């Protein structure tokens, strides 16, 4: 029981929300928001209570202190998204669907956690699908809006393709090794041509989830069409979960062909960071802009993987943690402004500082963190990633990454310039944020500063990263 505590807790609160949905009278539906957030907070706190490690179901399910921590990180991200969604869910057209939204969101989170805890490719695949299919429903949540429907369709079709290819790869691995258990695949995976082909298919499927070039094309369209909070969920929690499990699998199951995938990653990192940046420069819509910025960030995450070391694992986890706070901070601002005014382009943000100085400051700090400017956490995240890659002598790669950081600084500063320097005839009017929006942004702000300054966090992650081997 306790071994599976994270998933069981999430299932429990999902069931509670379902029951509440059935028995709550129609005019009190908006209370579900508070209930869901409180329940999720409880889950998050309980998740931090240390619990036993071990395996269940004959090794199909496993958990360790490291995996528990990864789940907690995902819970943090999910909680912030749930808080940030409150303002949007209160709109009249969404009022009927509040619990539906939270139930779908929690289902994907349960899927991700099973995926992280899987000890077997079958379990892994089940978790992956559970994490994907409700997301398509969420992307099409505003189904009477053309863009949202389009996003849902594009997401489900692309996912279907990638899942098919991934499953095909898994079947090849099963065919050549005769087992699906991670612990048994690892030793048997010697790198025969068919095994490598299976690995390629598997990797392409995962690359789709993390949106690495050239498997990233769905990202911008889906992010633009989907509700802002779903885009932010996709960009941090979903991507973070996929990055974690990919890292774990690369380090354990596929470590025998590490030399090969390192070389391939080398090329994919350069492609992803560069393409993400080049496209981001051209964007006017902030959601598309953040989509491409998140593609570039995904490339940075891989920098930590390439060295295949404990330190690399630590930097990946740390970077994702920082990235959750920074990206959710930026998306949070975009979300509230989009809800209140419908404005989503950079030009609309002209003169934001004059009318809504706090939102502008929040946006600035989040973008600074994404760009990696000290003293905010993003700087340390990037710094450690670069250090991890430099430790393995990948100086040219680090140099390219640094040049890309400069390019990214340019487009992040474009937004900041619009907010602070440009003047506008029709600026976004001044408005007051509600409690949940402020809370969500304050949590992000606290994260952006605290994670950077409190070195204990990095040390704690580093201590747990031993658990992988």
């Amino acid at each position: 029981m306790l071994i599976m505590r994270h998933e069981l807790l999430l299932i429990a609160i999902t069931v509670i929300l379902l029951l509440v949905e059935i028995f709550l009278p129609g005019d009190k539906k908006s209370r579900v928001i508070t209930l869901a957030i409180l329940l999720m907070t409880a889950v998050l706190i309980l998740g931090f209570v240390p619990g036993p490690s071990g395996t269940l179901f004959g090794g199909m399910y496993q958990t360790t202190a490291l995996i528990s921590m990864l789940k907690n990180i995902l819970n943090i991200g999910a909680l912030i998204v749930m808080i940030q969604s409150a303002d949007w869910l209160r709109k009249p057209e969404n009022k009927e669907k509040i619990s539906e939204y939270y139930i779908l969101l929690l289902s994907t989170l349960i899927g991700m956690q099973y995926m992280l805890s899987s000890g077997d490719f079958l379990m892994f695949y089940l978790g992956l699908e559970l994490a994907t299919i409700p997301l398509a429903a969420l992307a099409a949540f505003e189904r009477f809006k053309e863009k949202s429907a389009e996003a849902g369709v594009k997401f489900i079709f692309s996912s279907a393709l990638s899942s098919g290819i991934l499953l095909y790869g898994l079947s090849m691995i099963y065919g050549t090794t005769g087992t699906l258990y991670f612990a048994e695949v690892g030793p048997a995976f010697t790198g025969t041509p068919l095994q490598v082909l299976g690995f390629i298919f598997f990797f392409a499927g995962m690359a789709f989830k993390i949106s690495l070039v050239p498997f990233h094309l769905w990202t911008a369209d889906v992010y633009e069409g989907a509700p802002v909070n779903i885009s932010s969920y996709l960009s941090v929690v979903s991507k973070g979960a996929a990055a974690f499990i990919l890292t774990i699998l690369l380090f354990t199951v596929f470590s025998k062909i590490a030399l090969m995938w390192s070389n391939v990653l080398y090329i994919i990192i350069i492609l992803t960071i560069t393409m993400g940046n080049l496209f981001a420069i051209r964007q006017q819509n902030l959601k598309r802009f953040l989509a491409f910025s998140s593609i570039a960030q995904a490339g940075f995450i891989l920098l930590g993987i390439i060295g295949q070391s404990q330190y690399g694992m630590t930097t990946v986890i740390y970077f994702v943690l920082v990235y959750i706070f920074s990206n959710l901070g930026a998306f949070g601002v975009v979300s509230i402004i989009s809800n209140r005014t419908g404005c989503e382009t950079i030009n609309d943000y002209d003169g934001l500082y004059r009318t809504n100085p706090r939102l502008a400051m929040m946006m600035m700090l989040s973008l600074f963190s994404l760009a990696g400017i000290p003293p905010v956490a993003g700087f340390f995240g990037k710094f450690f990633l670069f250090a991890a890659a430099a430790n393995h002598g990948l100086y040219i790669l680090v140099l390219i990454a640094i040049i890309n950081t400069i390019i990214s600084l340019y487009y992040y500063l474009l937004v900041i310039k619009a907010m602070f320097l440009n003047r506008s005839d029709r600026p976004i009017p001044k408005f007051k944020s509600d409690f949940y929006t402020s809370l969500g942004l304050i949590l992000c702000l606290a994260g952006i500063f605290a994670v950077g300054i409190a070195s204990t966090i990095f040390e704690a992650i580093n201590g747990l990263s031993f658990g992988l081997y």
Partner: protein
Amino acid sequence: MIDFSYTIWILLIPLIVFVVTGLTGNRFKPIVTGIIGTAGLGIVFLLSVITAYKFFFVLDKVDGAFQRLLAFNYTWLNLTDKLHINIGVLLDPISVMMLIVISTVSFMVHIYSLGYMKGEKGFARFFSILSLFSFSMLGLVIATNIFQMYIFWELVGVSSFLLIGFYYEKDSAVAASKKAFIVTRFADLGFLIGILVLSYTTGTFDFITLTGPNSPAFTSGQGIMFLGMSTMTWSMLFIFMGGAGKSAMFPLHIWLPDAMEGPTPVSALIHAATMVVAGVYLVARMFPIFHHEQSALEIVAWVGGFTSLFAAVIACTQYDIKRVLAYSTMSQIGLMMLALGVSGYGGEDGLGYMASMFHLFTHAFFKALLFLGAGAIIHAVHSNYMHEMGGLRKHLPITHATFLIACLAISGIPPFAGFFSKDEILVAAFHHNKALFAMEYLVAGMTAFYMFRLYFNVFWGKEQHYHHTPHEAPLTMTLPLIILAIGSTFAGFIPFTKLVTSDSLPFENNTEWGIAIPSILIALVGIGIATMLYMKKSDTSKKVSIALGGFYTAAFNKFYIDQVYLFITKKILFNYVSRPVAWFDRHIVDGTMNQIAFVTNVASDKIKGFQSGQLQQYALAFVSGVIGLALLFTYLWTN
């Protein structure tokens, strides 16, 4: 074992006060902020006194020596397995002594400012920054490692900058704050280089390791020579450069007189008693290494000695009472540096070290008292210039009495505090270096002269026509004066040889009357000359200054050091260094960046068709990606 972990609150309280008052300063009445700040410092003062009592009198000694203990320690950044940056609290005799000095003076200044700053615009801001300063300064002295010290060192610099420029609407205040910041920052660059060299060669930042008996600094960094000195000597010299900047040693002293543009309580706190002695504290903290690098220590001694003489000469010619005090501060800090420079290590050899710390302690009391007294005088007559004053002793009886005590203390007249500490410095200098010793006799005489020149000009002589009758300051201002006057009178009887010594072992020491009596006589001669010249307003002093001719003019103009700096920066640095660098920056660096931007722009324009919005194209790209990966692996396979 006594638990000292509460000492972290000595740091946290001023920080909390700063954050709270800084954020909410506008919401309350100004006086609330003042009271919160003063109360916070009051608690810090109590904690410091308790800590000192427990440390010196309750805590067990190890082999007769005071312990050095880490009351609090937190690993902040792990750079490598061995090298890490900690934040913590180090308690040893000198840090505990500095806690007492800083918390006492800061507390007094807080109380005093309640009266002095009353009705000023920015009253709340003033107290808020004062808390920031107290936090930084306390953090500096209890640093467990040189990097923590450097962090707080810079924080001290920032808060000093903010306080000097407190009247930011006044051009001269802004200029002075910039000057102070840039000059000390320049010196800090040396400090940073020194830290980097030191930590690179020894592999540690930690003070306990660095200054312990088996310090890696004694063995490493000796082999490589550069310009005739070893790496370790160079690193010590660079570190001393940082100390010299903060402590206004020649030739990095030019910021201190201008810093008097700040409010007078600030001058008393920062530019007399605490921040400016940070350099002395730094050298004392690193003393075992300095002692090991004798050539560096020799330089410390000569820089200190020269500064003390140089500043004393200038002090004799100035008319602005705060500037006289500023130069006098430089001169006294020079004495402390000199005492460290002539000191040996361990037992009675460490007399100079003990004397330096002793003088730092007593000086804090009487110099803070002098500045606060000057503040009361300025408060009464609204002028800084001594020739616009005179006959004030009837109007300001308390200020007059306390000021006189401070003058006697700084001149080294027994039984006031300054006599004992200065005497120890003279003894230490006598045993080490006769030339420096002779110089200090001269300085002692000049100190007595310029202090009493100031005293007679202000309190005696003919009464001037004041705008309104000068009146004594309120109780909030006179109370600190009285308390500090008591300190200035009795601090000399504290047995420092039993408490603060170079190796933490107590030793016996008696006043050497053979050296003390001549120094008293010299001081009395100085006072006598000042009495003759200034007790009654007469022309004699003018005649003397005319007789001295060029030397007097040069001293009056501070030996033109400021002009030399201006020449070097404006004429040489700007023309021959800054311009070529600017050209390089504009054409080469910016040009490269522009090229990157251009290429990026063109590239992103070319590839934008890739993102078409067509789902079937995306699928095509996906499958092509898989095939591409397969080809890539095949390529890697065959190689």
